[in-house]
């Protein structure tokens, strides 16, 4: 997820202080991993430098001055562009597993075990997500469902590969 564009989206709804951005971000997207203040201010500094946000108020306080940030027209264009653009699908897992399976076949190791081990791990995670989903609110359900559908797609690939192992073995050993 793009932190900068997420911040822009939060600032488009209303101007905010850095700590307020962090609070709202953690509430909606943190999922147990809250942002560090360092990340917040580094990101705001970059957005400021690129002209996507501006400081619209500085309030004196007991500590350092508190800056309130607002989004610029360029920032609105940037976040709109990001929101309308599809994300690249990531075939991250298959390439690693494919390499393992081929290496197993080349070295006469049981390639099916690699697929079964991965399948068991996928299902373990899917069970965990399903439990979390059943105990959670709608936001939890949607986030978990997204992960579940991706894991299910991986599992289908594992099943298909398991069904084609004999053909793959014949090809890689040729």
């Amino acid at each position, binding site marked *: 997820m793009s932190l900068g564009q997420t911040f822009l989206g939060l600032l488009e709804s209303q101007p905010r202080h850095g700590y307020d951005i962090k609070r709202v971000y953690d509430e909606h997207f943190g999922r147990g991993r809250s942002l560090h203040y360092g990340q917040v201010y580094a990101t705001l500094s970059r957005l400021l430098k690129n002209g996507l946000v501006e400081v619209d108020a500085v309030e004196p306080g007991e500590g350092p001055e508190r800056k309130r940030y607002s989004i610029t027209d360029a920032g609105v264009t940037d976040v709109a562009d990001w929101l309308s653009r599809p994300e690249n699908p990531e075939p991250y897992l298959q390439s690693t597993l494919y390499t393992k399976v081929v290496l197993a076949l080349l070295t006469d190791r049981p390639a099916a075990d690699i697929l*079964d081990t991965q399948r068991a791990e996928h*299902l373990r995670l*899917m*069970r965990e*997500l399903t439990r979390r989903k*059943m105990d959670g609110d709608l936001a939890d359900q949607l986030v978990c469902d997204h992960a579940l*559908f991706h894991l299910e797609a991986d599992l*289908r690939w594992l099943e298909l590969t398991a069904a084609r192992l004999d053909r793959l073995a014949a090809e890689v050993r040729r």
Partner: protein
Amino acid sequence: MTARSEQRPEQRPEQRPEQPSEQPSPLLSAHALHKSFGPTPALDGASITVAAGELIAVMGPSGSGKSTLLHCLAGILRPESGTVSFDGLELTGCGDARLSELRRSEFGFLFQFGQLVPELTCLENVALPLRLNGVRRRQAEQQATEWLERLEVDDLAAKRPGEVSGGQGQRVGVARALVTRPRAVFADEPTGALDSLNGERVMQLLTTAARDTGAAVVLVTHEARVAAYADREVVVRDGRTRDLAVAR
């Protein structure tokens, strides 16, 4: 839930094997099942154990033998060799009448299609297993009403299966499978005909109700997202079982 080995030779199904205290004795077990349909072997040495209250997903490709395994476990099909036992009772040695009684009193069933009697209302469908067990009509319908409420379909009580949607009908099916408070529920692709949202809801209701009543569930599915509701999974390939948790 701790997974147990399916193939340990000392775990004879006709006995209640002594196991470590953290592993409950199996409620249901099958050992080395063989079953063929004509020249085609459907089961080729399949074994499985299910503990009381455990929810097991049986997965595998089409034609792998998973439905045949479920039918043998439920006493619907007789294997050519191997043993099936339920709570110490050897099913493979039972006559048809005893098996039929066992299915009515101890087992619940949920299938992909058509388990509801089209001529009966939803309420009468849910009450049917109780009526077959000799429960009086009023009491049976009272219990059936409670189950329809639990499955959030009590407004369908007077409707016939042809008048309700697939998802609603399957919720009625869950109520009917659990109304006798069976100790084991056999579910064969229970979400196979449903869209994602209805499938999710049926699985949530089925698993919650099964956990509340302590029923063990044997769930045959080819969908990983459905299997993820189970405590563990057993994979069937070419008529043989593999417990992935044990394989690791």
